[in-house]
């Protein structure tokens, strides 16, 4: 069998993270994958050494544009661990609420994109429409749709006024009602079952070997969740469940994300109810020397920060590990053996801050012939497979179309 190399990446104009995947293909099957990164290494760890502990919060917020609060969340905890700072109770609840609002909008973003990849653009349109009110609430509470600048070592910068509570609860009810419908539609859809089940399965053993985190590991049946395992902020003060699924395939990952949205909504509501009055900031003026570790369960998995200080204004060393850093290498275990039409979907299933499926070149190793595949081509391949399954199953409509919803509009 002739072996073909398909490079995916490194740049995609719509996504923030350039990465480069080389797929080795025999016929339709992927037989090997190589990954390259570093096209956009911004030297943030080095940069942080030149900033004060307070300034670094804003710096790390800019690491990710989708889950922007996860890095400050982990970073501030690392500084607090290093300098033994106490966080006031109210600030703990506010942190939890911001973190969970972010999880909801990040998961909604993923569900929409997954719908687009599968050829269900109705899902894409509706879910992204549903994401808007979440961002509106973020803007109301923090002043920004993203990059909230809410965190600081020892507390938070802004309070959530009690008057804002009813509006947040109202929005959450709206989102959960809608997502219940979507989740039911997705879970009952025979085409999606046929299309996603057994695709790109990550076994328990591989999940452990690659040290994967977040929904990627929970979909493999391992109940690993930083919020429960290393309780922080107000997560141990509210009642919620760790969502897991079996199989580790794309379907399981989708199920985990969909169900986590409801858990997040539950956490926010309970936090709003239990949030005590009081200060939101410890008002710390000095910082001790030492070393500290901060962890946060971001929408994509554990964010890990290690900070060391010598008693001065700046960190001596600031190590940052984002969840995709450990999740992406697991492609080697999931993509190999699958078809090219599933590759884009599997790569997307770990939600790797999307990774650039633009500018794909197919090179035939033997003839040296090149064939260019764009992201549109990859999406088309994926759509064609969904259509084929639909035809086989005699399904004509997408899960949402069967619900007879009005046309999406403002």
């Amino acid at each position: 069998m002739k072996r073909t190399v398909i490079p995916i990446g490194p740049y995609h104009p719509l996504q923030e993270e350039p990465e480069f995947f080389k797929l080795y293909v025999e016929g339709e099957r992927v037989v090997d994958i190589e990954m390259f990164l570093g096209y956009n290494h911004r030297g943030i760890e080095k940069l942080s050494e030149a900033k004060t502990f307070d300034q670094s919060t804003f710096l790390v917020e800019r690491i990710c544009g989708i889950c922007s609060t996860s890095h400050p969340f982990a970073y501030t905890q690392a500084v607090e661990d290093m300098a033994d700072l106490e966080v006031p109770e109210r600030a703990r609840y506010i942190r939890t609420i911001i973190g969970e609002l972010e999880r909801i909008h990040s998961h909604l973003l993923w569900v929409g994109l997954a719908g687009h990849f599968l050829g269900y653009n109705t899902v894409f349109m509706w879910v992204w429409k549903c994401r808007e009110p979440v961002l509106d609430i973020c803007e109301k509470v923090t002043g920004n749709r993203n990059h909230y600048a809410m965190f600081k070592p020892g507390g938070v910068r802004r309070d959530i006024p009690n008057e804002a509570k009813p509006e947040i609860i109202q929005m959450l009810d709206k989102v959960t009602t809608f997502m219940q419908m979507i989740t039911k539609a997705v879970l009952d859809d025979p085409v999606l079952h046929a299309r996603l089940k057994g695709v790109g399965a990550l076994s328990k053993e591989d999940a452990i070997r690659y040290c994967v985190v977040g929904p990627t590991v929970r979909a493999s049946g391992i109940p690993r969740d930083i919020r429960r395992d290393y309780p922080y902020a107000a997560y141990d003060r509210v009642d919620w469940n760790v969502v897991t699924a079996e199989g580790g395939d794309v379907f399981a990952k989708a199920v985990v994300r969909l169900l986590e949205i409801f858990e997040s909504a539950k956490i926010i509501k309970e936090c709003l109810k239990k949030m005590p009055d009081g200060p939101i900031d410890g008002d710390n003026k000095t910082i001790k020397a030492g070393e500290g570790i901060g962890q946060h369960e971001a929408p994509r998995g554990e964010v890990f920060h290690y900070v060391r200080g010598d008693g001065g204004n700046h960190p001596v060393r600031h190590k940052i590990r984002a969840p995709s850093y450990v999740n992406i290498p697991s492609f080697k275990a999931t993509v190999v053996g699958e078809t090219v039409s599933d590759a884009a979907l599997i790569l997307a299933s770990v939600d790797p801050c999307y990774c650039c499926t633009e500018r794909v070149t197919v090179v035939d190793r033997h003839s040296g012939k090149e064939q260019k595949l764009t992201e549109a081509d990859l999406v088309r391949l994926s759509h064609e497979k969904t259509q084929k399954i639909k035809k086989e199953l005699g399904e004509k409509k997408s899960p949402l179309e069967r619900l007879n919803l009005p046309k999406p509009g403002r």
Partner: protein
Amino acid sequence: MTPERLEEIKKKLGSLVKNTVVKSPRRIYLYVEPEDSFKANKIMFEELKARLCTASGIDTRSSIEILYHWGFDDDHCVLTVKTQAPKPFPEIESIAQFLKGAEWIEREITELLGVTFRNHPKPGHLVLDDDWPEGLYPLRKDFDQIKRGFRE
């Protein structure tokens, strides 16, 4: 982590541990010699079933400190195995030989801090630019950003 559990872990590691710092029940630091680092980390992963959160390196002028952060999820504790690889040629055995999850981070430490990981299954360029000068390590303290033209 309970003190009993820590004793159990230290018993498994035996004489490899040279020093223990318990910062809090959730943060524990163990010191090992550079030649024992591989053995200690192997026990962490294979016998104690810990999860590698990540590794990091720090330039301490006379040596490079290498830290492997292990998450003991059931004990709600991050246990860090520290070692000091002396300069000018810091070198330790690679743990990526038995743990896939350590492959990238060890390559990254090699690039940014100039630590050699012996017997790494897949060494090579990871995060820096392809034409980055050899032997120049940006996270070392003697790396001068201004002189190099990276900063004004």
